[in-house]
């Protein structure tokens, strides 16, 4: 059942379950939406994650007790929302970008074509955002593609790089150090500060599909 704990003197942590599942994820997405719609005065930040939501608040405006009572009152809804978006992200898997294909081929025993086909097959679920602005944690990677992170993380991975690390796959939203095996690159901006309406391409609860594009298509899209 929903647990509401003191998390420092300016935040609470809501825990929805010990373990993590797609059902819990749906409840958290629905809860976050209801919470935002309520516009509770005094809430400063909301960070939904795999099994928790962190909520920071201004204790001058709302007390811990008042906030807790309001939070525990919001119903938990298991029904999937109608508004789930499917977002296609074009990825160029050319070896110009996919620097770690060799390592991945050695580890998985698959061909490059098989890896691309397994990577582009699922509709991945965006469980949460974090790490860097706009970065999304995806569920649904085919276990045949599970691969350990690089023994020596790179000091800099470019924005848009697509990789696999452990049981996860995703896109680097800004240039940063990182240890994932890089297999491609998207020309699409995941975080775009110049896009004032929607600076972030993806939100929690979205579904993602990677679509293979050629190097030529990559270059054309990049210039648009």
């Amino acid at each position, binding site marked *: 059942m929903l647990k509401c704990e003191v998390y*420092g003197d300016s935040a609470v942590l809501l825990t929805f379950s010990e373990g993590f599942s797609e059902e819990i994820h749906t409840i958290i997405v629905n809860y976050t939406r209801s919470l935002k719609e309520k516009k509770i005065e005094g809430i400063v930040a909301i960070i939904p994650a795999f099994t928790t939501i*962190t909520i920071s608040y201004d204790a*001058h405006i709302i007390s811990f007790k008042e906030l807790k009572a309001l939070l525990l009152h919001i119903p938990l809804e298991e029904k999937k929302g109608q508004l789930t978006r499917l977002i296609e992200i074009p990825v160029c898997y050319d070896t110009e970008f996919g620097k770690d294909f060799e390592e991945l081929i050695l580890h998985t025993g698959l061909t490059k074509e098989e890896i691309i086909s397994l990577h582009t097959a699922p509709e991945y679920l965006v469980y949460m955002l974090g790490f860097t602005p706009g970065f999304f944690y995806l569920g649904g990677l085919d276990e045949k593609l599970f691969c350990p992170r690089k023994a020596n993380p790179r000091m800099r991975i470019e924005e848009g790089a697509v990789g696999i690390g452990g049981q996860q796959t995703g896109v680097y939203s800004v240039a940063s150090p990182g240890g994932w095996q890089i297999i491609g690159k998207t020309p699409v901006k995941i975080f775009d500060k110049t896009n004032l309406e929607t600076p972030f391409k993806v939100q929690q609860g979205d579904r993602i599909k990677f679509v293979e594009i050629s190097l030529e298509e990559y270059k054309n899209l990049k210039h648009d």
Partner: protein
Amino acid sequence: MIEILKPGFSTTIQDLGRFGYQDYGMPISGAMDTDAAKLANWLVGNHSNEAVLELTLIGPVMKFHSTTFIGITGANLNPQINGTAIAMYKSVKVEKGAVLSFGKLSSGVRTYISFSGGLQLEKELGSFSTYSYAALGGFQGRALKKGDRLLLNTKNITEVKKVPKEFQLAYTSSLTVRVLPSIEFDLFSEESQKTFFEKEYVIGAQSNRMGYRLEGDALCLKEKAELLSSGIITGTVQVPENGQPIVLLTDAQTTGGYPRIANVIAIDLPFLGQQKPGDKIRFRQVSLEEAQALNHNKNMRLKKLLKT
């Protein structure tokens, strides 16, 4: 206009933070010592959230190409105009052509400079704060460099203000910060729980606006735990596998997966923001009620001053 002749160690533009995008993985950023930033703005008649310069460890040298009023608060970097010492915590008129420079650091580590009317900049995602990892906010999303020119808004002030003594915080290189036990506190061994409150930790060299890496007795869990990533807040003390705590600060990632042993309380965050590598920290436990009452009283006093 001001021209940066020397950038200092790390001089960035900050306000009180970038709120509303934490669910998209955007850190809050903003001044490490928000009290000092508010006081600096008050000195020159600005509202609290106006853009200020945050200086770190070594101050910049800057030339003023127009006359303005400034306010300097926070760490004492011994500010000078044309080589003559000037007062901190007081509004100061700077004439066109004057050069502002800084001397040796004598307390704290972060100094704030406000300009009457503020700087001519565009907010990005609702804030002036520089978050350099995403090249966001401030001046071109980065720390200032030699040759940068910042345009000033012009606003004359009629009253020279001085921050009352009781608001001028004394910074120490040996700080006790007050904390509440955090979400995973009970997962730590009883010995580590004791160690955390009894032993002294030193702020490591690899410390910055994202977090302070502490060095001292290692802290360990009762048994190994695999945690799922969860949202974190400024002041969270997390402990990675090597047992050395990290205090997460204003540029920290919004989520983390290490066990959280404690949270620094709000009233002590500005003091923490004035600590530097080599400084010593101890942790003391307080209750939620005490923490919130302390913060409430401080903010009420500060608000009263800022209204004047």
